[in-house]
């Protein structure tokens, strides 16, 4: 048994990273919105799904006309990010801002709105795709350039070109975001609004604009993650965002919600846990528990971690604002 586990371990860790980076990118969207608004934006999983759908459509229409797969992917990533970002802004503008303007203090109201928006977006995409192609399962087109693969470490790891692209792009985006938040004027403004919305507005910051931009950034990251997800796992439905969204949200909480490096760490930890138990549960339990229990075990471990460290891995205990 041990031999079997060790033989697969490099591969499992590698695949765990791929999944983990997807979760990390999506988790950033949750954590940023929570940071500024203290709102759990459940519609973010649908923003991710919209990115994936845009990716599929770009590949469907442009692949026959473009020789270079990398250029095509770049275009898909940009478009996926832009469309998802704009959708996120629209969601904020029409679903959350009116509630904020009315001064709704009940925290549950925006939460329910988020869940509602999420259903609306799912069915909207389903309707559009149904009328457009009469397809429920959207399949990512295969492009020759992106389909290469290599075997590393004497065959211990089977790695595809697209897996490297996924990791590379997500690391770039994560670094870019860290830079943006810590080193730019917009980043300072976002942090100020996150700290205290009303004080920030007294300092000459337009909170609506900053919130809108936060949604744009988080949404674009989610959209890019969606395109990469579609490239990696190839089949997309209007409901494909739900589980990754839920897991990314968990990752954000695990890392300490509102904390950007925490969301990345949480995503990677969750990806590893899920992939590890997905592969090894049947081996570890001698076939008594199958792969289907991977989420149960992964979430049990998350609950344990949160019992020991309720503020999340990198979160800080919030002190009373004076």
């Amino acid at each position, binding site marked *: 048994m041990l031999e079997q586990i060790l033989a697969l371990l490099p591969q499992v860790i590698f695949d765990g990273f791929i999944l983990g980076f997807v979760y990390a990118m999506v988790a950033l969207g949750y954590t940023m919105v929570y940071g500024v608004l203290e709102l759990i934006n459940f519609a973010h999983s649908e923003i991710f799904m919209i990115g994936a759908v845009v990716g599929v459509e770009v590949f469907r229409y442009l692949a026959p006309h473009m020789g270079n797969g990398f250029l095509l992917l770049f275009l898909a990533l940009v478009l996926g990010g832009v469309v998802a970002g704009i959708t996120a802004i629209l969601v904020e503008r029409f679903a959350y801002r009116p509630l904020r303007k009315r001064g709704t203090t009940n925290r549950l109201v925006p939460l329910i709105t988020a869940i509602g928006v999420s259903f609306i977006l799912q069915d909207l995409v389903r309707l559009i795709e149904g009328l457009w192609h009469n397809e429920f*399962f959207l399949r990512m087109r295969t492009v020759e350039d992106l389909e290469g693969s290599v075997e590393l470490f004497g065959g211990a790891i089977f790695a595809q070109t697209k897996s490297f692209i996924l990791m590379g792009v997500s690391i770039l985006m994560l670094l870019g975001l860290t830079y943006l938040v810590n080193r730019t004027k917009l980043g300072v403004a976002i942090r100020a609004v996150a700290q205290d919305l009303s004080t920030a507005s007294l300092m000459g910051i337009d909170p609506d604009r900053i919130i809108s931009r936060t949604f744009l950034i988080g949404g674009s990251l989610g959209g890019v993650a969606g395109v990469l997800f579609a490239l990696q796992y190839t*089949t997309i439905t209007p409901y494909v965002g739900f589980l990754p969204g839920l897991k990314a949200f968990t990752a954000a909480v695990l890392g300490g919600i509102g904390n950007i490096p925490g969301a990345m760490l949480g995503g990677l930890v969750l990806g590893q846990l899920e992939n590890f138990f*997905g592969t090894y549960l049947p081996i570890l339990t001698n076939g008594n528990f199958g792969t289907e229990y991977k989420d149960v075990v992964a979430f049990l471990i998350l609950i344990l971690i949160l019992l020991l460290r309720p503020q999340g891995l990198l979160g800080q205990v919030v002190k009373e604002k004076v």
Partner: protein
Amino acid sequence: MRKIGLLVAGVAALGMALGQANVIKIATQSPLSGPQAALGEQIKLGAELAVEEAKAKFKALGFDLVLVPYDDQANPDVGVANANRIINDPDILGVVGHLNSGVAIPSSEVYARVNLVMVSPANTNPRVTDRRLPNVNRICGRDDVQGPVGAEYAFNNIKVKNVFIIHDKTAYGQGLAEEFRKRFEALGGKAVAFVGTEETSNFIPIINQIRGARPVPELIYFGGIYSQVGPFLKQLRERGLRTRLMGGDGLDSSELVRLAGAQNAAGTFYTTVAGPVSAFPKARAVAQRFKQKYGKDMEGFGIYAYDSAQVILTALESAIKANGGKKPTREQVSQEVRKVKLEGLTGTIEFDDKGDNKKAKYFVMQVASGGNWADNKLIRIIEMAAPGAR
């Protein structure tokens, strides 16, 4: 109070008035939207074609024949809700459906309350007829034969000894996979693993298990629907694994090739209870009319739905005659269905005391390499009686 009483009386009167003396409706229930719509639509259109063609004949008997399609969304709750609407429409005298056993089982219990006859073109779970409901019939085969047929073909003809078994955790997929495993192990083969998964996109953990499994599996058996098996196949082949794959009739849709890619799906074996047009010489002409009318190719479940509707129409005709030309009751139609002996497109249809076809056909198929579903190779037809109820 009196107002309510009047209202109730009014509604009751309206209900009776709605039941028209000279209209006979046949309902279909199958998924027309959502992931399994490709299969469900075949059921609706197959039955519709049969009803359209019988219209003139029933007009001569003095009845307007109408088909009413219902969308069960492959969801048991929706199926039962529709079933309640169906039994409340007194003109509906027969149901063709469903696609999913998990939906057919609870829905048929609703039909049973008023003895409304159901003839299924596609439900393969043994429990569908093993409950011995007098109104439930099917013309297709059963999973406790379909699974073993696959197991025997894999062991005796493909000559594999080690199989990795996956299922989708539904009444259909898990049931089929279990029947496969039982027979395969009885023959002397080994199930290297037996895992369930509800995943729809990320199959990497299972693929890693297949890579690491010892002894090396020579075949993967997947009890599930094309929507899951398609992406699984694509990811499996992308990872360089050429292990052969086999599954049940849930794979019998051209969508499998679209989702997996023609190259990746080529050579996949599947058993099915609803053979392709090429397996039935009599179906060719009907398939042409189907294509003309709906602009789509007639696939297996379309042919079986056509025959299911034929069974109900035949029973209706004899019930009308026995009733002296008047509209028969649901009870009468239900009894007549059990007496039907019909040469359908798919062969002789005759029911045993449980409602199973006395001799159902099972097909072993292999996916063609060109990507055209109609070119799939028919390897073998096995005709087998349903086992007695357990």
